[in-house]
């Protein structure tokens, strides 16, 4: 069943065309890794999906409804949530308060502050600490927890390992594996190809604002993704654009 459907999406920053007529579908329960170099348009695409940026043209359909005109908070209400690049926590509020903010949309579901603490046990002792004082890993855990508190149907992770030490990245991914078992649909942007291939069931490669590769992980290889990443075989259709 298709959960999210993007049709001919164009996003511009002034003259610059960051996302160029991207069309793709994400099914319920899928884990999709979005791969691409810096400036390929991955973050822009995710932020557009979350409603933080308005597209120049195209449509975004979520659960069959057109959400292109909805503002960011309305999209959260409908079940989409973004874990933004750089965490973007509320630094003057405590871990617990940041988590509670996610619960304010009152979508109803299984996620509670206690359940977040059970999958991120490292946060328990920092419960009442201001998030400005947390380590990078604790901040990332809080940001993921805050997003989960909205009880999303689909969750977009933007560069969750950015700026974290390898050890902490391992911890974050271990928690993520727990999360994926709950059946939530995930689109994640990840620079680390090995990790992306390990966790995701499908790879989407972006290059210069376009989707250049879109395959199930099982039917692609590290070499093929690397070629798409660098655009080594331009003009050749690698299965992008449905």
């Amino acid at each position, binding site marked *: 069943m298709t959960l999210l459907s993007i049709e001919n999406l164009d996003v511009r920053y002034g003259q610059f065309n960051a996302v160029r007529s991207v069309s793709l579908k994400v099914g319920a329960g899928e884990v999709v890794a979005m791969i691409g170099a810096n400036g390929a348009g991955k973050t822009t695409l995710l932020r557009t999906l*979350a409603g*933080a940026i308005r597209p120049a043209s195209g449509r975004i359909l979520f659960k069959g409804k057109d959400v292109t005109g909805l503002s*960011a908070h309305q999209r959260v209400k409908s079940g989409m949530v973004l874990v933004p690049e750089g965490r973007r926590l509320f630094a*003057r*509020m405590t871990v617990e308060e940041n988590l509670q903010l*996610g619960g*304010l949309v009152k979508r109803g579901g299984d996620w509670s502050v206690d359940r977040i603490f059970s999958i991120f046990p490292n946060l328990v002792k920092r419960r009442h600490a201001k998030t400005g004082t947390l380590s990078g890993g604790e901040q990332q855990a809080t940001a993921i927890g805050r997003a989960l508190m909205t009880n999303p149907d689909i969750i977009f992770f933007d560069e969750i390992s950015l700026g974290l030490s390898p050890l902490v990245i391992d911890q974050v991914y271990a928690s993520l594996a727990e999360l994926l078992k709950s059946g939530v649909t995930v689109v994640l942007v990840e620079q680390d190809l090995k990790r992306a291939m390990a966790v995701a069931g499908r790879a989407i490669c972006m290059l210069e604002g376009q989707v250049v590769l879109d395959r199930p992980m099982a039917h692609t290889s590290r070499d093929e993704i690397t070629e798409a990443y660098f655009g080594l075989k331009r003009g050749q259709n690698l299965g992008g654009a449905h």
Partner: protein
Amino acid sequence: MLNQIAQAIVLGGYYALIACGLSFMLSVMRVINLAHGSLLVLGGYFLWYLGENYEVSPFVGLLALVPLLALIGWALQRFLLARSARGGELLPILTTFGLSIVLDNLLFEQFGADTRSLAPYIGDMAWDSYELPAGIFVGKVGVLTLVAAIVLLGGLQLFLSRTGTGKAIRATAEDADTAGIVGIDARKASAIASAIAVGSIGIASAALGMRATFDAYAGGAQLLFAFEATIIGGAGSLWGTLIGGIVLALAQTAGAAIHPQGFLIGGHLAFILVLFARFFFLPGEFTYRLRRIAGLAK
């Protein structure tokens, strides 16, 4: 001496009460509302009008005034501040400055130059006082004002720290874009914050009219006292505002004790000393913003 300190604390309660709405607006919306004093006087006229024409007690009048001002606050944010904020951080301040001029002159046109007071409508309370040990008398209105300030500031503090709406308002104040990504309607949160800030002015309006007289142009001086109390108290901390009000009143009282005309000077000196101390010695976001406006920081 003891008497002077007691009177200063009571007066400080009044300053804290009139600073409450201004401080709330500054701390959660980062807007210095220069129409604060004018709205205060507008509320005073509203209560006076009800008392004069319908013999309504100002305490009963508050039941109508607070929702009315809250509605004005909501509209102020929705139609003026939210739009002007797109033009940079100074524009909302200029907008409220313009609004204060409009309000002052409308009030003058409507009510003329006569000074008004709410004292006639509250009976004995206007001049009655409580006797404290050591033969100190403090006016009933003053004590009630101090209590109102403590309850209001404490209530707002609890609201911000405990309720979902309060947390949404704090999150919006910190980063409105991210608040949206988390599912918070930032526009709504700002409008509620503004409604609360301006609505709370109503209670200060009652205190203004009960303890003294006011006219259409009385807002400027009240704004100044409220602003001084806010800044002395740490610009953005609600409990700090209570301390700020009391420090301001103590400084004024000390000024008056030194020289008969030293009352205002004493307050201004305390304000300037605190401002400079914060400006040069204490780190903090507000200080940083001030420095940026003054061109001393990037």
